[in-house]
């Protein structure tokens, strides 16, 4: 019905190998792209800055983590630390007078280098041990940033981001940061969409399914695992610099604690491991569910006369993240992306259910 497949016949291989073989999907993607471009005209500035901008940035970060966890099957519990390295490195470079474009890439490279060191530590071992090594990375990076005043600008200090320009446009006000974040998000999304069509993506998939089996058929597993860490950490570093310059504008160590890592892992799991679309869904749910629930509690307290303690309200996000991770893993391990895929498959042949394969 909606996702009409009837009457679409691909006569060339390249037609069938498109990212979106069905015209409806193409139009939907185009519509979303246009909506994102013209969002500043459509919605209020307040919503743009406090809802849409974080959603775009966190989605990019979730894509970077999803590349590692869903694409290469390597667990990472310290992605917040990777983002912190990118943010601090690029802000320091900008303050030293480097243009923002270069600082962004520099932050990405430094994140990639540090991330790869910890990845290489853990690649002799895997699964479980990797989880612990990356968890240790989070704590060590936190410690280094806080303890070295040269990096953090002193304990409890914030580091101001100077005025910068990106490709000749000054990144100030509400619009420019949004478009910078959107551009980076678009680039990462395109990379992720095309990943599974490349030999790199296929090699990663082989490593993910079973690394020894991949080695037997000639995939250099160590190299690809390391590459996966490199690419994912690079994306994390770039996101860090975008986060610092476009969203926070003044960074302090507590913005990048374990909580951020947990948030991102929750986004990937809730959205769906290995799914591009899922990263966006997951980021939206994890970012906005606590806000909505908190507003509901506020409404319940003021309108319905329910008394809800501040302790309870302040712990709602943690409860929600945990409950969503557990719930999705138990009942829908492939996350929101799978739910969307089920809906799509249902409407593909609606109302002729019997025609579904």
């Amino acid at each position: 019905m909606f996702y009409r497949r009837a009457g679409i016949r691909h006569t060339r291989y390249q037609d069938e190998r498109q990212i979106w073989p069905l015209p409806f999907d193409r139009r939907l993607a185009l519509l979303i792209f246009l909506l994102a471009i013209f969002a500043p005209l459509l919605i209020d500035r307040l919503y743009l800055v406090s809802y849409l901008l974080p959603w775009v940035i966190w989605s990019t970060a979730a894509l970077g983590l999803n590349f590692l966890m869903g694409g290469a099957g390597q667990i990472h519990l310290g992605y917040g630390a990777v983002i912190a390295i990118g943010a601090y490195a690029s802000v320091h470079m900008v303050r030293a007078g480097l243009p923002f474009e270069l600082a962004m890439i520099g932050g990405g490279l430094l994140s990639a280098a540090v991330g790869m060191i910890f990845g290489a530590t853990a690649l002799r071992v895997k699964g479980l041990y990797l989880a612990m090594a990356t968890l240790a990375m989070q704590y060590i990076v936190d410690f280094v940033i806080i303890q070295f005043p040269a990096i953090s600008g002193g304990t409890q200090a914030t580091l101001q981001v100077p005025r910068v320009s990106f490709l000749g446009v000054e990144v100030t006000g509400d619009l420019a940061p949004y478009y910078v974040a959107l551009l980076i998000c678009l680039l990462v999304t395109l990379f992720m969409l095309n990943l599974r069509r490349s030999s790199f993506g296929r090699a990663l998939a082989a490593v993910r399914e079973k690394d020894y089996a991949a080695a037997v058929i000639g995939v250099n597993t160590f190299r690809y695992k390391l590459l996966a860490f490199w690419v994912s950490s690079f994306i994390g570093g770039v996101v860090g610099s975008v986060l610092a310059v476009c969203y926070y504008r003044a960074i302090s160590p507590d913005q990048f604690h374990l909580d951020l890592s947990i948030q991102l892992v929750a986004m990937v799991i809730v959205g769906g491991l290995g799914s591009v679309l899922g990263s966006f869904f997951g980021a939206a749910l994890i970012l906005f569910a606590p806000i909505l629930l908190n507003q509901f509690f506020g409404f319940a307290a003021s309108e319905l006369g329910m008394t809800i303690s501040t302790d309870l309200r302040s712990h709602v996000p943690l409860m929600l993240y945990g409950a969503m991770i557990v719930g999705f893993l138990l009942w829908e391990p492939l996350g929101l992306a799978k739910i969307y895929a089920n809906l799509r498959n249902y409407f593909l042949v609606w109302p002729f259910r019997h025609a579904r394969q």
Partner: protein
Amino acid sequence: MDMLLLAELAINGVFIGLMYALVAAGIVLIYKTSGIANLAQGALAMMGGYLAWAFSALTGFPIWIAIPLALVAMFLIGTLLERFALRRMVGQPIIMVIMLTLGLEIMLRGVLPGFFGSAVKRLDIGIPPTPFFIGDIFLNKATLIGGSVSLLLILVAIYFFNSRLGIIMRAVSDDQSAAWSVGIKVERAIAIAWGLSAVMATAAGVLWGATQGVDWSLSLLLIKALAIAILGGLDSLPGVLIAGVIVGLAESLATGVLDPIVGGGTRDVVASVIIVLTLLLRPHGLFGREHIERV
């Protein structure tokens, strides 16, 4: 640096390390039987502390009834967790199972302070707060008693592995399907392991709650426990004892010696450094079995 201070740091470090080791022993117990690293162990310890506090402060039981009540309740909670969450994940990739336990950890860290209040709860188990002196060395009584109890409990756990039930668990950890085929109830063995591990977590939670009060920070025991479990070898209970002493000593000495130099905060990073170093130099730990994987 005078020797007296070093000796004081070392002795306190050993006992604190033994208290950490109790949490790590729970992780090892579960890993030994089911091959899962339980990242919710810190949260279970916190939950045990909260329950003991709730039974004594909210319902008015004396503490010597409240603690056994908390232990029994946590045994049930542990087995229920295994039955309704972990067992459904059998056959899923290890990454999913780890994430599930991490999800439990996050959820418990929100639920318990959320409903019981996030202020620090005082858990009085009858240890007088007066300090204790050997010569000129100042020792914390709560830490001394906590460390001794932990040592005792871990020794009991080691002994337990030689009992009938312990032999069943060792069989399960060796080869689940082989154990199954000779009539061992594998699910029950794993469920009991989870229950016992929750009991050990509760004991640790109560002991730590008695020294520093009960609040969400008890769940931070996880990272130290992980460091101990990895250093000792994930499937070795005696390894936990020795690694616990090493980690406790390292942490205590780092706090005393390095903190004045770098300006504080080394306490929390020692465990992480130990994890990374162990993985670099000897990934299966001091006493762990080297794992051979086949395609």
